C-alpha cells in the first residue's frame, strides 16, 4: 500500500477518534432554569454558581465540607488587628485572557460587589451593613479591612469571585473571564452555555475538557435526560423523580425549613403557645413520606455541619397532650388562644410543600389552635417574611427555607433572630447581645458562643417551629465518577468530576 493510503487511513481514524475522545472528556449538565446573568458577582445564586463558581471565576479562599477553609487564590492570611486581614496571593496566576492576576484585581472585585451602580447578589447577601476597604501593599499582598470588624473575613472571602480590574463597575459582564480552570466560550441564549478547559490554568487540569450546560424547568425531564444519556448530571431533581438507585444521590442540601413565629402578637407572644406549636408537630411522620428519607429533624437554623451547631439539642417531642395542656394553661391566664393564626406558606418552595403545610395546619388544629393556611407565590410571601411587617397584621407564622452552606452561623443568625434582622420575628435584647458576641468571637470561643445561642433560641425563647434539614437529589450518569455533596446546592466544580 502506498504511504499516502496509510496517511489517509490514519487521518481518517484520528478524525473519527478525536470527536469521540472529545465527547468522552466532555460533560453535559442540565440545570433547572436558564441563566439570566452570567456575571460572577451573581455567583451566590445557585444555578449561576454551578456554572461560574470555581469553574470560571475563583475565590480567595474556599470552604471544603470536610477540611474547612482552604487557600485558593490566596495562599495565606493573617489577622493584623483592627478589622484588617492581610492576604498573600498566589503567584503566577493569570486570567484566561492572559492578563496577570494581582492585588488590584482583588481590590476591584471587592469594590464592584458593593458598587452603587450595580446590584451584585454577593455584596447584598454577605456584605450588607459593613464597609470594606482595601490597601494594595504590592502585586501579591493586600490588606482588607472590614468595618465593623469581621473575625470571619477569610471565610467571607470564600464567597467573593475575583474578576479583572478592568471589568465595569456599572454593568454586568456577558462573557466572564476568570482565573479558573475553565473558560466561558459561548452562551446561546435560551439553549446552552459552553465551557472548555483553560490551558493556562495555574492548578491541576481536570479530567473534564469541555462542558455544556442546558436548561430544563421540569424535574422529570432533567431526570429523563440523564437516564436517556442526553445529559450527564442533573444537579437538582425532585424527590419523586429520584427513582434510580444507581444514578440518584441524595445529599444534605444546606436548606433548613422552619416556621418563623411572630413574637410580637398574641397568642404567639406567649412561650407556652410557641412550645405547644412545637409539641403539636409529628416531625418523624414527614420523613420517608411527604419528605425524602434522609431528611433530618432540625433544632437550629443552620445545617449540622456548621460550626457552633449544638448537637446536644433535641427536637421537640411529638406530644399532643402536652401541647393541649400548655394551651389550656395559657388560656386560663387570659391568652387569646382561639385567635386565628395565619400560616403563610410559599408555593413551590420545596417538593411537596403544599402537602407539608396542610399536614402542619392539621396538626396545629388538632391540639386546639385555630390555624388557617394561606399559600402565596414568592413576591407576596416576601411581604410577610421580610420587614417591615404590616401593622395590625394579627398572629402570623411564616414557612421558610433558609440556605447556609458557608459553614458559619453568622450568615444566618442576625437576619433571622436579631431585633434588627430583616426576617426576625423576635425582639430580645439578650439574644441581640449573644449574636453580637458570637459574631465577634474567634476559634473555640466562637463555637461555644454559637452553641449557647442556639440553645437559648431553641429552649428558652422557643424562637420558631424548627422543622427539617432538607436533602436534595441529583442524578449522575454512570460514566462519571462524581458524588454530589452539600456544596452541590450552590456550585458544581467540573474539576471534581472524573470519568470511570
Amino acid at each position, binding site marked *: 500500500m502506498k504511504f499516502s493510503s496509510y496517511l489517509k487511513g490514519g487521518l481518517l481514524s484520528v478524525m473519527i477518534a478525536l470527536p469521540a475522545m472529545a465527547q468522552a472528556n466532555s460533560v453535559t449538565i442540565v440545570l433547572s*432554569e*436558564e441563566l*439570566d*446573568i452570567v456575571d460572577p458577582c451573581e455567583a*451566590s445564586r445557585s444555578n449561576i454558581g454551578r456554572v461560574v463558581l470555581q469553574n470560571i471565576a475563583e475565590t480567595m479562599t474556599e470552604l471544603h465540607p470536610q477540611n474547612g477553609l482552604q487557600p485558593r487564590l490566596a495562599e495565606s492570611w493573617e489577622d493584623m488587628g483592627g478589622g484588617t486581614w492581610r492576604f498573600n496571593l498566589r503567584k503566577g496566576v493569570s486570567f484566561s485572557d492572559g492578563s496577570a492576576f494581582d492585588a488590584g484585581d482583588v481590590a476591584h472585585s471587592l469594590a464592584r460587589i458593593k458598587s*452603587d*451602580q*450595580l*446590584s451584585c*447578589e454577593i*455584596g*447584598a*447577601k454577605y456584605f*450588607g*451593613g459593613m464597609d470594606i476597604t482595601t490597601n494594595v501593599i504590592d502585586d501579591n499582598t493586600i490588606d482588607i479591612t472590614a468595618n465593623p470588624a469581621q473575625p470571619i473575613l477569610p471565610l467571607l472571602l470564600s464567597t467573593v469571585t475575583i474578576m479583572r480590574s478592568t471589568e465595569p463597575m456599572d*454593568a*454586568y459582564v*456577558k462573557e466572564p473571564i476568570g482565573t479558573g480552570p475553565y473558560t466561558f466560550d459561548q452562551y446561546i*441564549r*435560551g*439553549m446552552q452555555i459552553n465551557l472548555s478547559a483553560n490551558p493556562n490554568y495555574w492548578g491541576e487540569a481536570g479530567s473534564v475538557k469541555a462542558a455544556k450546560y*442546558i*436548561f*430544563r*424547568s*421540569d424535574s*422529570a*425531564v432533567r431526570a*429523563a*435526560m440523564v*437516564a*436517556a444519556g*442526553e445529559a450527564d448530571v442533573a444537579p437538582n431533581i425532585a424527590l419523586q423523580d429520584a427513582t434510580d438507585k444507581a444514578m440518584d444521590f441524595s445529599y444534605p442540601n444546606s436548606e433548613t425549613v422552619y416556621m418563623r413565629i411572630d413574637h410580637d402578637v398574641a397568642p404567639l407572644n406567649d412561650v407556652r403557645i410557641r412550645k405547644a406549636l412545637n409539641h403539636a408537630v409529628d416531625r418523624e411522620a414527614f420523613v420517608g413520606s411527604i419528605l425524602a428519607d434522609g431528611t433530618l429533624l432540625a433544632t437550629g437554623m443552620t445545617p449540622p455541619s456548621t460550626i457552633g451547631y449544638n448537637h446536644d439539642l433535641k427536637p421537640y417531642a411529638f406530644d399532643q397532650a402536652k401541647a393541649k395542656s400548655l394551651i389550656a394553661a395559657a388560656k386560663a391566664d387570659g391568652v387569646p388562644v382561639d385567635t386565628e393564626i395565619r400560616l403563610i406558606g410559599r408555593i413551590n418552595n420545596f417538593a411537596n410543600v403544599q402537602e407539608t403545610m396542610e399536614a402542619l395546619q392539621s396538626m396545629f388544629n388538632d391540639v386546639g389552635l385555630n390555624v388557617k393556611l394561606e399559600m402565596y*407565590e*414568592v*413576591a*407576596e410571601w*416576601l*411581604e410577610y*417574611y*421580610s420587614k417591615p411587617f404590616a401593622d395590625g397584621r394579627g398572629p402570623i407564622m411564616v414557612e*421558610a427555607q433558609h440556605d447556609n452552606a458557608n459553614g458559619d452561623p453568622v*450568615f444566618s443568625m442576625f*437576619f433571622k433572630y436579631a431585633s434588627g434582622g*430583616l*426576617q426576625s420575628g423576635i425582639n430580645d435584647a439578650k439574644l441581640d447581645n449573644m449574636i453580637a458576641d458570637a459574631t465577634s468571637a474567634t476559634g473555640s470561643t466562637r463555637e461555644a458562643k454559637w452553641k449557647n445561642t442556639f440553645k437559648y433560641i431553641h429552649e428558652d425563647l422557643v424562637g420558631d417551629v424548627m422543622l427539617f434539614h432538607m436533602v436534595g437529589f441529583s442524578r449522575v450518569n454512570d460514566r462519571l465518577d462524581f458524588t454530589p455533596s452539600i456544596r452541590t446546592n450552590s456550585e458544581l466544580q467540573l474539576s471534581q468530576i472524573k470519568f470511570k
Partner: protein
Amino acid sequence: MQAFLLKRFLLSAISLIFLVVLVFFLIRLTGDPASLFLPVDASEEAREKFREINGLNDPIMVQFFRYVGDLVQLDFGTSMRRAEPAIDSVLRGFKWTLQLALITMSLVTFMAIIIGSLAAFRAGGVFDRIVTFFSLIGASAPDFWIAIVAIVIFAVNLGWLPTSGTGSFWHWIMPISVLFIRPFGLILQVVRGSMLSVLSSGYVKTARAKGVKDNIIIFVHGLRNAMLPVITVIGDQAAGLLNGAVIVETIFGFPGVGKLMIDSILQRDFAVVLASIIVTAVAIFIMNILIDILYAILDPRIRY
C-alpha cells in the same frame, strides 16, 4: 377593502395602546422586583440601590411617560433580569413560538379538514365514530401529562426520539405532536359539525342527484361553504399558540415567548412582560386581519 384594513389597523392600535397602559400599571401593583432579584437577606440599602438603578423609585407617572417616550422610539426598555434589551429577549423567544405555532396549526388544519370532512360524509359510520372518540379524548387530555408520558415511552424506554431540546428534526416531533392533539380534536369536531350542516343542504343533494363524485362534493362544493366557522376556531386556537405553548416550551426546553412571559411575570421583569404582550398582541392582530381577508375570499358575499 383598503378602508376596511385601515379601520382595522386603527382599531387594533387603539386596543394595543389600551392594553399596554393597563398592563403597565397593573403589573406594578404585583410586588417589588427588588425583593425577587436580590436574596431575601439583602439589606434595605441594597434594595434601595436596586430600585434606584432601575428607576423604580421615580413616581409612577414619571415612569409611565418615560416608557411611552422610549416606546415611541421603539425602545422597549431593558430587562432587569437579563440586562439586555427587552425586545431582544422577546423576539428571540417569539421566533421559537412562531415556528411551533405555524407548523402545528398547518398540520392541524390540513388533517382536521380532511378527516373531519370524511367523517361528516359518512356520519354515524365506523370511521366517524372512531374519529369522534379520539378527537374528544384529544380535546380533553392534559398536555402536561401527555408530554411526560411521551418522553418516558419514546425517549427513555424506546430511545426513538430525544427527550427535549431543539437540535434536529427529531427534536420537534414530540413537542409538535403534543401541541397538535388538543386543537386537532377541537377543530375536527367543528369541521365535522359544519360539514354535516352543509352536506344536508339542497344544492349538495342536487349535486349528488346529478352524479357528482363524492370527493368533489366534499372538497369542492361542501368544504368551501363549511369553512367560515372553522376559520374562526382555527384563528382562536392559533392565537392561543402564539401566546406561547407554555407547557410544551417548559417540558421540551423550547425557549419560547410563553415561558418567557410567565417567568417575567413571576420575576416582575416589567419591560419583558410589556414587550412580550406588545409583540404577541401585534401578531394576533395581524392574524385576525388575515382571517377577515380570508372570509372575503371564501365567501364572495362578504364585502367590507
